């Protein structure tokens, strides 16, 4: 396994400056808890730091996911994340997708429905990858696999760089 990274020379982009969150000091504790765009950006900022399984760069730096690629409808409790694998034949696409799903599962309230997909045209086996990422039985089975779970946890480990 020493030889052959799938994408040995990825293009690395600058991290985008995040918008600051305006938190009112006199927030009403009894207000209905809803998730707004900024809050999703906060969660997003957490998972933008997910590391590419192959590289020390975060998914944001590789433009695998951008803020624009996250669609939220809090009223419908719905999130869709669209990510762009670095190369068309990226075999890590399902792992990256699994990491995104796990991160959202652990961060969002359980009422949320989450769809994960690769950007249209960005992957050679787009339909197959999307189908696998959204089959919850396969996801559940994958997360019972200790090796896969270790890999996911490693990808989700915060980078303190």
């Amino acid at each position, binding site marked *: 396994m020493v030889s052959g990274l799938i994408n040995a020379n990825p293009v690395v982009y600058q991290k985008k400056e995040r918008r600051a969150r305006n938190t009112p000091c006199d927030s009403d504790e009894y207000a209905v808890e809803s998730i707004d765009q900024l809050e999703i950006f906060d969660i997003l900022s957490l998972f933008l730091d997910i590391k590419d399984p192959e590289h020390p760069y975060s998914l944001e730096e590789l433009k695998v996911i951008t803020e624009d690629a996250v669609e939220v409808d809090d009223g419908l409790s719905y999130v869709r994340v669209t990510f762009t694998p670095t190369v068309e034949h990226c075999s890590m696409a399902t792992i990256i997708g699994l990491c995104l799903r796990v991160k959202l599962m652990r961060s969002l309230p*359980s*009422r949320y*429905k989450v769809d994960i997909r690769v950007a249209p045209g960005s992957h050679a086996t787009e339909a197959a990858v999307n*189908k696998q990422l959204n*089959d*919850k*039985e*396969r996801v*559940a*089975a994958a997360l*019972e696999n200790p090796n896969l779970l270790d890999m996911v946890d490693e990808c989700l480990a915060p980078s303190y760089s």
Partner: protein
Amino acid sequence: MELLDGRFELKEIAKLEGHTDRVWSLAWNPATGVGGIPLVFASCSGDKTVRIWEQSPSSGSWNCKAVLEETHTRTVRSCAWSPNGKLLATASFDATTAIWENTGGDYECVSTLEGHENEIKSVAWNASGSLLATCSRDRTVWIWEVLPGNEYECVSVLQGHTQDVKMVQWHPTMDLLFSCSYDNTVKVWAGDDDNDDWHCVQTLDESNNGHSSTVWALSFNATGDKMVSCSDDLTLKIWETDETKLHSEAGYSPWRHTCTLSGYHDRTIFSVHWSRNGIIASGAADDAIRLFVENQEKGIDRSSFQLLFKKEKAHSMDVNSVQWSPGEKVLLASASDDGTIRIWELVPIS
């Protein structure tokens, strides 16, 4: 109960907690709910356990009578009672199927069936209880013969599906096996006279109006001449066969698509169950349960179905399984990612 004449709703009569992870599936013991025997069902979960629930004859409340644990080492995905209710089969992601014997409320694991390469997704008994079928992510369906002394012998390994097999189900009266898959198809399997040699006799796929994504489950009507399947393509499909031909010498008659129910659920439909009195219940990832009945209008050549009732927010997360009870009083049980099981009664809207 004249279903089309009145309006009905599902009334929640119990919410059962105990599982510590998502509940994948449940199965009513077919030998209960009649002759004064209290209703019993089993539920299985991502918490690796199976729970046995019984309704108290006096109070009507539900109690967990047993927890079957420390046998399966991974998610228990599916469970099924033998027709006489004496044996419970449980299928697990740990690639084994366990057989539990029920002796007066105690459950003992009497056999473990090994052979599949990886996760088993479903297990089902045939109508006489002489055969058991299992299916797996390894793309195969296995048929096991039940021998004396808690012995199970694999009589056939059916290959044909090109992806995970999600569910197996036997025809209610004939030894015909149905399997549905991640490859978007339903396959029908028949054995020879000795039930030793099995082969695929029909594949229901997109070319004959079948599903365009994963088929998660299927169920038969009481007479066995109609079948409903549900899918990730957000539709339910009704299939029919010729009942007289089915029971003829040939023992098989092809199934044809007659009706597609679309525009109801808006996320994956995981479970469908046809009640003995003709109500189709469906449970989906949109957290809702829907009930459908066949239109009785004369002069319509092809069958059509209408929505009888929709229960939004039946659970707070995905509904994974819906099952009608046996017995005099028909109840519906549903199992969910929210870790609960709910029991529903169909009542007229007053």
